[in-house]
Each structure stands twice: as structure tokens, then as C-alpha cells.
């Protein structure tokens, strides 16, 4: 993985000193809260219901064990002993004091981490495929390009006061495992006609109040022109995007209102007059960054593993874990292992400091010192030997981290909701917990197959409810928490927005209603058909009937 050189180190250090200066001016009255707020947000500091929240960047989700241990230490020393992984593959702490933040940032800098641009109206942390470097359908590892984007977007002089936030995702395979088309800009790495790296560029995706799936703006931008093309997109939006209404400021609204063709013309006009040479990253610099992401020194191993097979036969619990959480790796004898942060009845995405330390140990010992954060709010050990999976599983199980539910119905994405968030209308966590408890039967979950349930506590959609196969959105109805259900959303390469099935439900009605929809799916599905495929074939009606039938019958 990437290591800082003296320039990266200097930028991060200088950023901390800058923030220290800003905090001290806020305290002394040199900055008002209105002036300070965007500055603290661009350093990851929110003010939530009960306290500040600090969101630490995990660039493109990749960490080493030293970084994970430092995250654990920060949780212990400055917070309440836990952290929360987000759908942007960042980690947030819910209780730090503002006065401690410069010290926390210094601790992060020591392990080459930061909280720069994890919030605010700027270019946010770039996300990518959590299986980068492992998946066999990958054209090339997308992470060097993510790192190039990270550097280019860091403290950008022109793009730090944008109309609204700006999110970029990069994938490098036909299969989209990063919800690429829900992003302001989605990049799909392809081979250009000259055999060099190029990018299919999508623009104008986003969730929130008015969700859009990103549309293709360019079929193949050469890698050497990527930063220039992105500059042209951002420039067009920065000059034309709306600033009068926060809900209409994202680039998706501009793209939708101009139409993709007119927006493309606008971008190409800027692209034509850009000094492109200045934005061209030298080949040797691309090569330098790529070298950091070279495959680890894999051993020559047989494709199958006796230890893995024996454990699968001997222990049905391990066999279930292996079925659901252990994924094929392109290197024979290796696997990618998903650590679910969705224990039965738990808080999705939460992890304690002790658990972080354990994951760090396992990464160091078994996975070439690498651990990833997935946008589904789970962790991943990217490169483990099949031979080692029984041992890893045992140690995860001892720490409560071996829930065998990756991509199953209880692998729920949920935002912190009204328990923490000042924007939320309703709580997300208790509803997710109730559903997780109700569907605890793992045999039943496996029978249902892959189903993504996503929950947001408000229309800002941090819990990605629009693109959940089943989405749950918390709304406020005269001071009471209610929840709207959608079905048929999807964040993959056939991205789609879910359809609202009907009137919103009270908190205690949500889990039973989802249960009825799932039962209906088992009744109507064809052989081998996933939930999403069934919804696509039949539409939302059968599920609407299942959810509301009970009420209608009573009425």
C-alpha cells in the first residue's frame, strides 16, 4: 500500500497546524461559528446531537495493521472505546472533544492518516472496489489511480468551496462492487484502444432527497487526461451549479437540468482551454505510485486446501462462515475474507477498540499486513491463505466478529440515525437491530440468499436506502418516527432506485413488514432467482401486497 514521502508528510503536518490555528481563532473570537464550521468540516469535525464527531479518512478503504491499532488507541484514549465504519469506508468517532482534535490528528499523522476532506463542500474520500487486487475480473488495480485522485483533490485551491460535497468512486471491473453509479463522478477503469489505461466516466449520480443514477459522459478518457477531465467537470459545476438551495446544489441536479449532452458540451469547452500538460501526472510518478500496490509476495500454493476442507467437513459453523464470508481470490490457495460488523442485534458498522486490535493482529499475521474497509460497513482481510481460514475464523469468533452473514439479509447498511445525528428524523439503529433479531435464523437467511437491506434515518440517505434491494427511510410525522419502505433498488452495474411501496410504517411495524415481503419472495421466486431478480421480473406489487395485506385485511 501507499507510503507517504516527505511531501505527503509535510502537507498532513501543515494541515494540522493550520487547523490548530483555526481552533484557536474560533475560541478567541477571530472566527465566528459560521466561518469556522466549513473549516472544521473539511477536517472531518461535525457537531452532532451529543458531541463532536470526528470522521477519519481511510483512503480507498485500505489500511495496515499499524493504522488499525492507532484507530483502536484513539477510540480508547479520546473516545468511548469504539468506532463506526461508514459507507464512505471512513471511520467515525462519536465523542471527541474539539480541544483534543489537533492531538488526535497528530496521532493519525504518525501512521500516515488524516481526516482531511471527510466532510464539507469539497472532494471527499475516493472509494473503490473492496476486492481490489484480489478479484479475477479486474483489469488493473484501481488503487494507484485512487491515490493519484487523493493527492490531486487534497486541499485543492479551486475546489474547496464547491456548491456541495463531491464524491468519486473508481471501479476496475465490469462488475460494480463500489456503488459507482451513485456517485457525483463514477470512474470505470478500462483498456483504451492504445492498450493504455482509460476511464469510462459517469457523472451526476447521487442519493439524498432527489436521487439520480450517474450517466455516461465520456466513453474512454485516457489516464493521462483524467485529472484534466475531472477539473473540467468540477469547473463547469462550480460555475453553474445552484447555490440558492442546498437540496439542489449537487452536480446531479445540474446534469439533470441541463441534460447530459448540454452538460458534456460545457465540460468539453472547459477541457479544450485547460492547460492539460500541467495536469498530466508524469509517467514515472504513475509508475512510482503503482509500485506501492504491487501484489504481495504470494506463495505458490495448490488451488485447494486440506485444512480448509477438513474444517468445513468437521464444523458446520465454519462451513457456514466459509460459504458466506470467504470469497475466491485470483491467487490459487488464497481467499478474501469478510469480517462482518453486523452481529445479531448489533449496531451496523460499530467495532470496539479490542476488536480493532484483533483485526490488526490478524491482518499482520495472515493478510500481508493489509485490511480493508468495505462500503457495506464491513472489514475485509484481502489476502489470506485458505489453509489459515479456520484459525482466523476461530479467533474472530472469540471476539464476536465471525457473524457468517456477508451479503445476507442481516448484513444491513445503516446510518447512525437520530441516536447521534443532528440531521436525522428518525432512529436507524433500533430498527436495524429489530430486523436483525427477527431474521436471526441463519438457515433462513441462507435460504433467502443475497439481499441488501439499507436504512437511512433521513432523506440525506447516508444509509443508501434508495439503492437497497429493500430500503428503509426514517421520516418524521408530526414528531413521531415513521419508516418508508422501498423495493428493487440496486447499487451494482445495473444500478436502480427502489420504488416506494406505500404509506410509511411505525417503528415496530418495520421488521414484521420486511419479514412478510421476504416470505412472499420465497413463495414466488423461480429456481435460482435472487430477490432482486424476482423484483425485477414481477415489480413491486407482490411485495406491496405482502407488506400491506395484513393491514388491509384488518381494515
Amino acid at each position, binding site marked *: 500500500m501507499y507510503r507517504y514521502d516527505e511531501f505527503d508528510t509535510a502537507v498532513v503536518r501543515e494541515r494540522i497546524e493550520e487547523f490548530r490555528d483555526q481552533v484557536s481563532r474560533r475560541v478567541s473570537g477571530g472566527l465566528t461559528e459560521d466561518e469556522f464550521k466549513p473549516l472544521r468540516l473539511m477536517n472531518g469535525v461535525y*457537531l452532532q446531537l451529543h*458531541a463532536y464527531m470526528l470522521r477519519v479518512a481511510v483512503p480507498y478503504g485500505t489500511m495496515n495493521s499499524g493504522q488499525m491499532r492507532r484507530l483502536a488507541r484513539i477510540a480508547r484514549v479520546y473516545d468511548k472505546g469504539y468506532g463506526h465504519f461508514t459507507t464512505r469506508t471512513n471511520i467515525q468517532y462519536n465523542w471527541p*472533544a474539539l480541544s483534543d482534535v489537533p492531538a488526535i490528528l497528530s496521532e493519525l499523522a504518525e501512521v500516515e492518516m488524516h481526516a482531511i476532506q471527510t466532510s464539507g463542500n469539497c472532494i471527499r474520500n475516493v472509494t473503490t472496489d473492496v476486492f481490489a487486487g484480489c478479484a479475477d475480473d479486474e483489469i488493473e488495480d484501481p488503487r494507484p489511480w485512487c491515490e493519484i485522485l487523493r493527492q490531486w483533490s487534497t486541499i485543492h485551491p479551486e475546489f474547496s468551496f464547491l456548491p456541495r460535497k463531491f464524491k468519486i468512486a473508481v471501479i476496475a471491473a465490469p462488475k460494480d462492487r463500489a456503488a459507482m453509479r451513485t456517485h457525483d463522478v463514477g470512474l470505470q477503469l478500462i483498456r483504451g484502444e492504445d492498450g493504455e489505461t482509460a476511464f469510462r466516466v459517469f457523472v451526476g449520480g447521487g442519493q439524498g432527497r432527489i436521487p439520480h443514477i450517474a450517466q455516461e459522459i465520456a466513453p474512454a478518457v485516457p489516464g493521462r487526461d483524467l485529472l484534466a477531465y475531472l477539473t473540467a467537470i468540477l469547473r463547469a459545476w462550480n460555475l453553474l451549479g445552484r447555490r440558492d438551495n442546498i437540496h439542489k446544489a449537487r452536480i446531479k441536479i445540474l446534469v439533470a437540468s441541463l441534460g447530459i449532452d448540454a452538460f458534456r458540451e460545457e465540460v468539453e469547452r472547459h477541457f479544450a482551454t485547460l492547460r492539460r500538460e500541467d495536469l498530466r501526472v508524469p509517467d514515472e510518478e504513475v509508475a512510482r505510485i503503482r509500485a506501492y500496490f504491487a501484489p504481495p509476495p504470494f506463495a505458490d500454493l495448490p488451488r485447494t486446501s486440506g485444512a480448509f476442507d477438513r474444517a468445513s467437513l468437521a464444523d458446520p459453523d465454519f462451513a457456514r462462515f466459509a460459504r458466506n464470508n470467504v470469497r475466491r481470490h485470483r491467487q490459487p490457495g488464497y481467499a478474501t475474507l469478510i469480517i462482518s460488523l453486523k452481529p445479531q442485534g448489533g449496531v451496523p458498522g460499530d467495532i470496539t477498540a479490542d476488536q480493532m486490535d484483533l483485526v490488526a493482529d490478524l491482518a499482520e499475521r495472515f493478510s500481508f499486513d493489509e485490511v480493508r474497509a468495505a462500503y457495506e460497513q464491513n472489514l475485509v482481510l484481502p489476502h489470506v491463505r485458505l489453509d489459515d481460514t479456520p484459525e482466523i475464523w476461530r479467533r474472530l469468533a472469540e471476539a464476536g466478529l465471525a457473524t457468517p452473514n456477508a451479503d445476507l439479509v442481516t448484513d444491513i447498511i445503516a446510518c447512525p440515525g437520530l*441516536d447521534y445525528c443532528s440531521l436525522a428524523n428518525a432512529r436507524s439503529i433500533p430498527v436495524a437491530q429489530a430486523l436483525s433479531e427477527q431474521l436471526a435464523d441463519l438457515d433462513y437467511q441462507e435460504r433467502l440468499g443475497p439481499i441488501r437491506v439499507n436504512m437511512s434515518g433521513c432523506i440525506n440517505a447516508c444509509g443508501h436506502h434508495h439503492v437497497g434491494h429493500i430500503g428503509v427511510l426514517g421520516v418524521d410525522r*408530526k414528531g413521531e418516527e415513521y419508516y418508508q419502505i422501498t423495493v428493487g433498488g440496486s447499487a451494482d452495474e445495473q444500478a436502480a432506485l427502489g420504488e416506494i411501496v406505500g404509506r410509511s410504517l411505525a417503528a415496530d411495524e418495520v421488521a414484521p413488514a420486511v419479514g412478510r415481503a421476504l416470505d412472499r419472495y420465497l413463495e414466488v421466486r423461480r429456481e435460482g432467482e435472487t430477490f432482486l431478480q424476482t423484483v425485477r421480473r414481477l415489480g413491486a406489487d407482490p411485495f406491496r401486497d405482502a407488506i400491506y395485506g395484513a393491514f388491509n385485511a384488518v381494515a
Partner: protein
Amino acid sequence: MKIVTANRLSDGRVIYADASGDPVGALDQAGRFDGDAADLALSQAALRPATFVNPYLVEVDGGRPSGRDRFKELIRSQGPTVGNSLERP
């Protein structure tokens, strides 16, 4: 009746203005004000930006938040209803 609430600048914790306008941590210690007195209390809190961040008024009824955001204000006053912060005060 109304109370003045905000978050404290130094650590972000929920605070209320007591009867004399000083910050207190518990809702039941908050000063309760009527009409113009509430607006005055709010403007006094706003004059202390190094303590009160974004102060605003909350309607209370019998010492409990009422009004549209009553549930949010209840959670603010009592902490998260679930989760990993509960075990550790």
C-alpha cells in the same frame, strides 16, 4: 415555557442555560422562560459564542421537551437510546 439549549464549544456536549444564563449539563437545571424573557435569554447565550454554539429555544411542557422536535430533544437530553456508548458513561 421555553428553555435555551446549545452545544458547548470545547467538547460539543449538550448544554442548557440556567436561570441566570450560565451553562448547565442537565435539562432539569435549565432555566424556563416565557415570551420575551425567552428571546432575551437566547440573545444572551448568543453573546457567549465561546461557550454556546448555535443556541436555540426548545419548548418544554412539565420539564419535558414538547413541540415538533420533542423526540430529538429528549434524545439530546438523555443520550443515545442504543449502542456502544451506553456501557461507558
